[in-house]
């Protein structure tokens, strides 16, 4: 067993651009430093700055206060006033030399004073001014915490409950059913009867792999079902659990919960080109049935876990992408604020995803309801602040370049294994040399621009030029950074790494970064810890946190996950607030069943597949969805599960089903994603990269298309201008006037333009892709239409439960979307290949789409449609158009969209 942390850490440091903790000087100042500050710096600050920027004067222009060391480092709305040792980043210096800011206003300090400030910042800005530390006392007492821990159901350790006795003892197939039936009987309700075989199979297939069963599978299953329903189900479940599509289905559930996305979101939406590695890691973990507790630990502290091979090491690093891929406001000016927000997001995600607990509420005040004092939040913040989060792009040998919009830079983690993408950029030595030269020239140019601006005083031009050169530098540096000295691509991932010396965090009054109070020792929320957890003073505590969350003894982890699994199989959670198991969440409908499932999960070695199997083979899983008036009056939400919940398919299943039924689906996993291909760039208006470039490209493509169509029109006809597509009267029979040609030309141009524009602006929709939906690019706020329209999880939010709506927007999508039309045509071709007789075609289409032949009502409706519709289409394309419209109607119908 090897510990690779320390060697790795060195590698990571080389590529680290931004370390979130402010690296200020310790408290031990030398007498000389104090003297320098008192003689040269403090008097100037008081005389020149405090009037507008201090607590004492009560003025904080631009949010900036300079009268304590901390406030000076935090700075104002434009950023830190002083970054020790870094003149470039210190806006105070920038302002006194009149670079971007001009301070004091209207007047420049003497060169001597400016030099003093330069020296002071370069020597690390020693600053003896101490801030008085307030001590915030919690309103939540130890007794409050103790009593919540002992009395609230979710904080008690789950115990394997006795199965309750039931009257109708023939009904239950296993222990799960006892819990369900006992509750129903207690309310004088009875469960619905068993559903028909094909419906049960449809449920199993959609729930386990997210795809409809094939006609052959349905036939096979029905035969087995007639022999023995229990065996039939067990057999199918085992087969489905072995398929790679299981991980794609259940991995996507997990990706919802962990707010998986391939960009930062917010105003400046920067891509995460390496996030897809985490996506694949999740899918593989579910397919391998990786013990869930290990899966949990890897995501929180994979970087700190011992490994036996580089491959395993790489896998663990990729797992920590969980902490790095949250939404981020990269144009936040203030680095302290940014660091606090990043850690807050990580705390929120970790506690809600794994523990169903909202700890982040305690950032600003005691969380009264759940007995989480504010100090507990900062105890946990201490754990998370001792790491660097990698989510951006590595710096090149020339350094990192931030831009006007992208203030907060970050690097990436170099993987210990070589795993380049086939589409990664490679450069020859000459190209590399040219890139370097270009970068040097741009730097020189940038310096020149600055100098000119200072001399000419033309601020507008100066700003514009500086923004432009900064963007150029950033782009060039980005290109250089992702290849090695030979121009070959390096393999990176997002994730986290520990910083060297762990430190505790300070409590912030009302969560405000400039209102620091006492230091809080690192630790975990007390109310969730039945026995206190010790953190080694030399360690951050993150590994301990991971082990504690992923432990058999944690009361919440297994419950929260068992509840998620139940929800995806049954349609509603036992606790419906899947991310809130606290006092403000919903109480469990079947507390004993939840405990039973949690204990089963732990005792099976945290096997998700075994839990899925147990639920799938239960009696309650196979009951009908039949409505019952009396039961509905008593239990309108079906909380007691007197019938199966009719469920609308989720977005992925709708799209994937269309692809399976049309026969067009490509089950191979695509490498990377569209975002990985585009690299590190900003997303604007639905376009990866610069919209202007995209528009230019689109114009060129459209132009080429028009030219080609014109060539086709004018070819062949011996100079005759033939209308496009031929006319009903055939070419040449009708003379075509000049005006008509112009109109036709215009229409050709317009149609081509529209098509191309659609392709470019809808680049992220990927209407032509045939792979499974889980591999579509997930850019925050730009989710693909095929997913977004059917209530896809908001990629910026932790989503354990998706909404399920029926909207006109969905109707428009099914009626008019090019992907749906494409798939309907392919579906029709498949049906036509199978049989030439319309009657057989209809039969086959229904079996493919619904898993059963048409009912008599559907058969006559279909006949009526074919007779009415075909003449209106002029029997074009040998009935192909009619069949396409029919197939599209099946996709569009409610039956296709619901699993009953």
């Amino acid at each position, binding site marked *: 067993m090897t510990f690779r942390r320390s060697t790795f850490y060195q590698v990571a440091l080389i590529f680290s651009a931004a370390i979130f903790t402010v690296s200020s000087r310790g408290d031990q100042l030398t007498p000389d430093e104090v003297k320098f500050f008192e003689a040269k710096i403090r008097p100037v600050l008081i005389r020149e700055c405090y009037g507008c920027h201090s607590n004492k004067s*009560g003025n904080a222009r631009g*949010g900036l206060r300079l009268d304590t060391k901390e406030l000076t480092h935090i700075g104002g*709305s434009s950023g830190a006033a002083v970054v020790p040792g870094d003149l470039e980043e210190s806006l105070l210096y920038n302002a006194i030399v009149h670079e971007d800011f001009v301070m004091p206003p209207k007047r420049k300090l003497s060169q001597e004073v400016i030099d003093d400030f330069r020296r002071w910042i370069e020597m690390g800005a020693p600053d003896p001014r101490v801030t008085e530390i307030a001590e915030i006392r919690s309103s939540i007492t130890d007794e409050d915490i103790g009593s919540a821990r002992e009395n609230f159901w979710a904080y008690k350790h789950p115990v394997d409950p006795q199965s309750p006795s039931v009257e109708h003892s023939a009904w239950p197939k296993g222990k799960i059913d006892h819990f369900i039936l006992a509750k129903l009987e207690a309310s004088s309700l009875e469960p619905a009867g068993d559903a028909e075989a094909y419906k049960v199979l449809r449920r199993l297939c959609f729930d386990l792999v997210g795809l409809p069963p094939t006609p052959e599978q349905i036939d096979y299953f029905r035969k087995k079902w007639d022999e023995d329903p229990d065996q039939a189900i067990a057999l199918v479940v085992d087969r489905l659990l072995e398929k790679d599509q299981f991980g794609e289905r259940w991995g996507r559930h997990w990706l919802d919960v962990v707010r998986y996305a391939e960009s930062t979101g917010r105003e400046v939406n920067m891509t995460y080109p390496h996030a897809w590695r985490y996506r694949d890691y999740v899918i593989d973990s579910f397919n391998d049935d990786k013990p869930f507790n290990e899966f949990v630990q890897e995501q929180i502290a994979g970087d700190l876990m011992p490994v036996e091979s580089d491959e395993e090491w790489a896998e663990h690093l990729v797992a920590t992408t969980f902490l790095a891929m949250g939404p981020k406001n990269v144009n936040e000016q203030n680095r302290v604020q940014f660091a606090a927000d990043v850690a807050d997001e990580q705390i929120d995600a970790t506690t809600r995803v794994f523990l169903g607990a909202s700890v982040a509420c305690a950032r600003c005040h005691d969380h009264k309801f759940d007995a989480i004092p504010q100090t507990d939040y900062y105890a946990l913040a201490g754990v998370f602040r001792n790491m660097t989060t990698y989510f951006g792009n590595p710096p090149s040998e020339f350094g990192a370049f931030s831009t006007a919009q992208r203030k907060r830079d970050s690097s990436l983690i170099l993987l210990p294994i070589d795993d380049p993408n086939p589409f990664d950029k490679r450069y020859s030595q000459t190209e590399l040399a040219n890139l370097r030269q270009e970068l040097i020239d741009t730097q020189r140019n940038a310096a020149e621009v600055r100098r000119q601006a200072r001399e000419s005083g033309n601020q507008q031009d100066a700003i514009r030029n500086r923004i432009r050169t900064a963007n150029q530098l950033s782009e060039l540096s980005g290109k250089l950074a992702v290849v090695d000295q030979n121009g070959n691509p390096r393999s990176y991932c997002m994730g986290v790494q520990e910083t060297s010396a762990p430190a505790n965090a300070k409590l912030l009054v*009302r969560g*405000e970064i*400039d*209102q620091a109070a006492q230091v809080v020792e690192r630790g975990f929320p007390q109310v969730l810890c039945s026995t206190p957890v010790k953190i080694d003073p030399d360690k951050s505590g993150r590994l301990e946190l991971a082990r504690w969350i992923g432990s058999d003894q944690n009361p919440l982890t297994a419950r929260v996950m068992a509840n998620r699994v139940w929800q995806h199989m049954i349609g509603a959670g036992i606790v419906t607030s899947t991310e809130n198991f606290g006092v403000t969440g919903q109480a469990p409908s079947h507390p004993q069943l939840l405990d039973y499932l949690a204990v089963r999960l732990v005792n099976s070695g945290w096997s998700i597949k075994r839990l899925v199997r147990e639920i799938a083979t239960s009696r309650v899983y196979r009951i009908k*969805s*039949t*409505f019952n*008036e009396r039961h*509905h*009056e008593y239990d*309108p*939400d079906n909380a007691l599960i007197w019938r199966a919940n*009719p469920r609308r398919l989720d977005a992925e299943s709708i799209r994937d089903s269309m692809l399976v039924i049309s026969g067009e689906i490509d089950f191979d996993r695509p490498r990377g994603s569209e975002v990985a291909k585009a690299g590190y760039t900003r997303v604007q208006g639905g376009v990866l990269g610069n919209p202007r470039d995209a528009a230019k490209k689109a114009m060129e493509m459209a132009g080429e298309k028009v030219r080609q169509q014109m060539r086709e029109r004018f070819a062949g006809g011996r100079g005759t201008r033939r209308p496009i597509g031929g006319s009903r009267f055939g070419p040449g029979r009708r003379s075509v006037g000049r005006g008509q040609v112009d109109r036709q030309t215009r229409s050709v141009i317009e149609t081509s333009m*529209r098509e191309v*524009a*659609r392709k470019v*602006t809808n680049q992220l929709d990927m209407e032509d892709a045939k792979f499974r939906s889980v591999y579509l690019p997930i850019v925050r*706020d730009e989710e693909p*239409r095929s997913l*977004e*329209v059917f209530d896809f999880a*908001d990629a*910026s*939010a932790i989503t354990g439960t998706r*909404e399920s*709506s*029926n*909207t*006109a*927007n*969905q*109707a*428009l*999508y099914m*009626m*008019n*979307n*090019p992907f749906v039309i494409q798939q309907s045509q392919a579906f029709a071709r498949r049906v036509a290949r199978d049989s030439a007789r319309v009657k057989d075609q209809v039969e086959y289409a229904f079996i493919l789409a619904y898993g059963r032949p048409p*009912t008599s*009502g*559907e058969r006559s409706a279909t006949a*009526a*449609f074919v007779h009415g*519709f075909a003449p*209106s*289409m002029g029997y074009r394309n040998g009935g192909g158009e009619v069949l396409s*419209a*029919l197939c599209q*109607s*099946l996709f*569009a*119908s*409610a*039956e296709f*969209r*619901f699993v*009953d």
Partner: protein
Amino acid sequence: MYSRRQLLQSVSAGFGYLAFAGITAAEEQAIANPLAPKAPHFPARAKRVIFLCMQGGPSHVDTFDYKPQLTKDHGKRGKYGGSLLKSPWAFRQRGESGLWISDLFPEVAGQADELTLIRSMQCDQPVHPGAMTQMHTGTAQFIRPSLGAWTLYGLGTENDSLPGFVSLSPPSGSSRNYGSSFLPAIYGGAKIGRGGRAARFARSPIGESVPDIKNSKLSKAQQRKQLNYIQSLNKEKLRRERHQPGVEGVIESYELAFRMQDAMPELMDTSNETQQTLALYGADGGSTENFGKQCLLARRFVEAGVRFVEVTHGNWDQHVNLSTDHQARAEACDKPIAGLLQDLKQRDMLKDTLVIWGGEFGRTPAAQGGDGRNHNNKGYTTWMAGGGVKGGFSYGATDEHGYEAVEDKCHIHDWHATILHLLGLDHEQLTYRYAGRDFRLTDVHGDVMTDILA
């Protein structure tokens, strides 16, 4: 089996139930459309609503609630700690009515004589998601129908080719705030554009005004034939399965979508608006362009007969940088809102269009970090204009600094009751039977603020 009355009660008021109630197509046309206009309980003052939702909590003490004592006590300790912060903006008396409004909203202030300021608002939720949801649905605890959905359920809509309730650019993840909950799905708000980008559709010259609004292959008549087939399949399903609100929702969504194909592109196309109108809304460029376009769209929607339009203007949550960021938020919406009021007036629509402005709560009189304010849900201001409310009128009051409503308190339930009243609906009569119980927007609360009625 069920009696017809039971069916009507249990199977929602959607028209899906007709599929198995054996009603002919002609009868269906006559009575089935759940969006058909319905008579109010009593004569309505307002026929339609435009709700300008200021998400994030704009500060009342910096906009519409003048607190001279706060200015005097600047720097002193506030009653709940922190030091009191005077408004960075000057207040002035406006119009003939002399309403006090700050310099943050100079253009809206120019319309002071049209406004009823409600300066005594209260809600129960001190955090954004909860307060937003309560403002829209009356409760933050359960998922319930939103104000717009109740309105549509009560009154139907004047244009059945458009959704009767439209939410322009709602924040992502906020669908419960414009959802129908247990009311039939057709009464839920239709989201147009996401995350502040409704204007993007209006802008794109070659793109589509609404995604997938046009079929590239079929004529209108052909598509209608196809749609009839889809609906017959859906009704078959409903006949088989009886209680299926989801299937009813699908059936209704197709009918609306089919009609929207003609109506929406026309509505979203603002190219026939004059330069003068665009300028009135600030929709011709600059920081007001985005919200200006959305306000203009809101007017076009209500003009076309849409019952309830909500427009969201977000990011009012200034815990820090109050002086710069509140200024920027206000600048982006001040002119558009004033433009909307003027435009409605000149089209003689303001008299029966209720315009509502407000956030989920206000902000504390005490400072947060020198240049910011915290959430304040016990006292804040919203306003209404047109549609049967008094002009140049101020209702209720907060304490001397603006912490709590002390006079004529208006809880969010009272606010809802009053809005329904203006629309001719009695909030106690507007009920929906679900799972054996009658539900109301105002639960068991709510008093109409009769003082503000014109």
